């Protein structure tokens, strides 16, 4: 869940249409049309990535919303079993915190997908996840989308996301690598994950929500 209190606005006379903002926006909320960046406010999570991308031109600034917008799903809108099944397909527990910035849990993303989100951008707009740093949640979001049968492609014209970069995981480590690097305890970790003695908690949130 994320409360969006401000979005961004473009000053047309400063914008040179370079597309630097367009290439990084995780929700495709800012796009360049006829050499001018245009913001779709309803898709903006206020993450500031475009402001940074435009630092040399200073054409983008924050714009406070009159009324903050809550990006959150109605958890009751999908049956618990379906949510749990989708999370399990992505090797996540529904209560697992997948985003330290927004506190988003796996079940929120699962509900968004079950409610019709098919892309990372749509998931973000529904839940707020990826709306701040994107450095923890990205792989979990892609795993949940993939578990629901939605593949995500890169777009060579931008670098919003490289979905082919989230393949490596403890589950896919070849035995040859596990044997070559015993100091990382890869076999032991795999076994402990299987037996439930170990869990992938992502961000070890100070106290997890009671389950």
């Amino acid at each position, binding site marked *: 869940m994320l409360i969006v209190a401000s979005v961004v606005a473009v000053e047309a006379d400063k914008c040179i249409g370079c597309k630097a903002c367009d290439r990084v926006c995780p929700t495709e909320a800012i796009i360049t049309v006829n050499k001018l960046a245009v913001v779709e406010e309803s898709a903006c999570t206020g993450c500031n990535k475009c402001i940074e991308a435009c630092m040399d031109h200073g054409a983008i600034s924050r714009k406070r919303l009159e009324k903050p917008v809550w990006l959150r799903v109605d958890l009751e809108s999908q049956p618990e079993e379906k949510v749990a099944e989708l999370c399990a397909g992505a090797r996540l527990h529904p209560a697992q915190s997948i985003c*330290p*910035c927004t506190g988003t849990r796996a079940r929120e993303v699962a509900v968004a997908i079950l409610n019709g989100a098919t892309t990372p951008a749509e998931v973000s707009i529904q839940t707020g996840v990826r709306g701040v740093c994107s450095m*923890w949640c990205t792989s979990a979001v892609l795993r949940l989308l993939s578990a629901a049968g939605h593949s995500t492609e890169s777009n060579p014209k931008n670098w919003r996301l490289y979905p082919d970069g989230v393949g490596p995981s403890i589950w*896919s480590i070849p035995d040859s690598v596990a044997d070559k690097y015993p100091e990382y*305890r890869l076999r032991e970790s795999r076994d402990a994950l299987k037996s439930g003695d*170990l869990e992938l908690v992502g961000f070890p949130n100070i106290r997890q929500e009671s389950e």
Partner: protein
Amino acid sequence: MRFAKAVTPPHQPESKMGFNLPAMRGAELPDLVSVDVQDLFPDIPDAIHNYGQDVAPVRKAAEDALANVDFSRIKATDSVNVLCSEHGFGMMGGTAYAEILKTIRDMVVEKTGATKIKLGFACGLNRVEALEILPEHGLDKHYEGQTFQFGPYDKGVPIDTEIGRLYGIGIAFKANKIIHVHYDDPRELHFHRLNGRAMKAFTMSYARLETRSVYHTQFPTQSANIVPRLIYESDFIQKKFAFSTTLSTSPAGVIGVEANNSLIELDKVLTERTLRNYGKLVKLFESLDECIVVIDGHRWLNYSHAGGMTSCNLFFGPQDYLDLDLNVTRKNQTSAVKAIVINYMWKQAFAMSEIPVISAQPSISRLFQRRGVEKQFYACEGLTEAMEKAYEVTDTRKVIVFDGTYGAINCSPELAEEFITKAPQVSEEVEQVHLPKWLKQRGLVPAH
């Protein structure tokens, strides 16, 4: 017991990234005292430099360390990116880290004749950092204007490894040679477990957000450093890698500089030093069962320092993350932190979940109110009011201030007394039980 007065912490520079500077520092709270880290553990090595002191010993240490490095990997015609991270500047005001960066440039020029040398700054939060920090330390001038900054969503470059494709930041690696400049405070033991920590920058500072996400969420913590290890060992990086250096510290301050052409060898030295120099304070922090944390650093909430320890060493306790046998699970942790008072930090804050968060000023409150993630959040006006609220919502008078101080810990007398009482036993247990185990688990021979 009688204690020394609270020590004056490093100055907080005005920053576009930060909130309003506080009217009162944590160290100015009435009754606050300080405990010298070497009084707690006399074997903590002496510092050659601390905040505000002469930086010449750091220069000398860097020159000595670099004298043992093979510079022949860099040709006069090569382009060279010296890669640093914002985090290194968060230690003791950043002067020591900056001095290493200056020394590196000077010695690369002197020993190789290379002139196409750039300083690449990995931002922690946003690009404004580099615009403030590099001039503050004269690094823009020292690098003759050849500096650049980058973040996790800049254009990526694919790096193919033995476990699949990962992505670095294109601009960071857009040079024939790279030099990795590290720092060694005990931040994020809960993530890197001190099991290949010197390599972690290849999955964080210099990596795209997808790779950071893989590191943090697709591997358990004791195994995750396989990811940066394989990036480091990839053909892509090995062709470019010249050498690495690290700022070497103890809880007392800077104790030296290490440099090596092999990051794996450097990591071994760093790992052993950290275990020996910080292990006892790590365990002492782990032994606490209640406290109020005051964040009064000038950067990140999680990485503010107190006696060289970072606040995250308390938040993610009380588990022994240095013990590689520890399997982390989703079970509730019983953190000793009963409330967090934020007097000053930058604009970033991870969700603190169920720990009460108390803001000491309106500009900070707005961030938390916008996020709306904390279950208990209190907006106060001023540190005095915030402390009153902290005492009200907790049952403790044990207060620790993370204000950037090395050498001593600013805290309340109640906590100082607990530290002093517990230290001898912690010291003995670390020496007899934990340190030998930690070293052995990492293939490092315990001392006799």
